[in-house]
């Protein structure tokens, strides 16, 4: 557990977090790894885990019968996989697959939500870190749907 606390405390996602909150969040964390090709999460499943990537790359994708698996974003070291745990119905809307060996900190989403209910200050510190991820995803997605490289008809 001591090693895990150090890993969590040193991850840049939690930079600036008070030690008491690092202890709190560590209680929801565990160290995980995925081999290349393994799925971190699948569409439709309960959004129970959040993954903070420590090493390796992950593809966010959606499957389509005609087009197969379409990758719409890749994420790497320091980035967060999984945002649907933030809001009900806590369900994944797409899938995430390891493109190579991936080491990550897995956070139990239910645990994090419960602790945030109990200690709102802790909850706010978590929101301050997770909401910017959402906003950045939104900006990226907007640029993608604008199809800026497309030829205007």
């Amino acid at each position, binding site marked *: 557990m001591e090693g895990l606390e150090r890993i969590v405390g040193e991850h840049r996602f939690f930079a600036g977090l008070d030690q008491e909150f690092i202890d709190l969040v560590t209680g929801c964390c565990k160290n995980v790894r995925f081999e290349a090709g393994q799925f971190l999460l699948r569409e439709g499943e309960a959004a129970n885990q959040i993954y903070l990537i420590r090493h390796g790359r992950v593809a966010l994708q959606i499957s389509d019968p005609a087009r*197969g698996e379409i990758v*719409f974003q*890749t994420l790497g070291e320091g980035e967060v996989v999984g945002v649907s745990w933030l809001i009900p119905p806590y369900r994944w809307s797409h899938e995430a697959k390891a493109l190579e060996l991936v080491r990550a900190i897995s956070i139990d989403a239910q645990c994090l939500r419960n602790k945030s209910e109990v200690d709102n200050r802790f909850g706010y510190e978590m929101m301050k870190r997770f909401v910017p991820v959402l906003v950045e995803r939104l900006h*990226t997605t907007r*640029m993608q749907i604008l199809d800026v490289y*497309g030829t205007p008809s």
Partner: protein
Amino acid sequence: MSMALPANPVLPPMPSADPMVPHIARVRSVRQDLADVFTLEIALESGEVAPFAPGQFNMLQIFGVGEVPISFSGDPAEQDHLIHTIRAVGPVSKALTELGPGDALGLRGPFGVGWPMAEAAGQDVVIITGGLGLAPLRPALYQLLAERERYGLIVLLYGTRSPEQILYRDELEEWRRRLDMDIVITVDHADTDWRGHVGVVPALIPHATFDPLHSIALVCGPEIMMRYSIMALLDAGLKEDNIWLSMERNMKCAVGFCGHCQVGPVFVCKDGPVFRYDRIRQLLTLKEF
């Protein structure tokens, strides 16, 4: 004694040639890059050498159809031929992409203010581009690599819609093998054959390696991509006077007489197409201006 009265008016010397009259050029070779994108190698029929600076453009004429501005996309050190990459979007560009070896076209140029190669000396050079925006930057890349020791780190961040739309892919893969430059390519979406980045160019900037206090950024691509990339560059610590971008507007003359290419006070043809960001920052945010 009577005073001499002024001649009226004070005239500059008569130009030796009318800048509106085209020269004849011939196509030497054609290469298809993408479904609707072709690269032409052309040379002046007179055999004249035509030096150009990276970032400049020519007006290419299909006789009887029209004329369009196309940036140089070849090596500025090779002066006996001119390379132009053209996407078929309208009648003139389509006709240009249908030319074959030996065919004639009209050519006027070179025109415009190019990339700030002199200012880049001693700096890290961050090149941000997307789609066909790589074409006007390729001459700058050739020059940077030809005199590699003059510059610091060189980073190329390039985005396209999908892996099939990557321009100059062979060349990029060759450059990627070099140890003295970083290339990161991202696409809007891909199937799982693609092992590279999926996402947008601005998102690559925080992860790129360059010293923001000693960098110059050259940006060329769709205007939305340029604006978001510039915001990310500023967030990363670059200053407004270290960011340069290439603008595009309707051009009929390329010499500042027809008025079509104006954006506020600047003529894209003669004050640009490359502009330093601080000069046109306000213009980029004005709608319908």
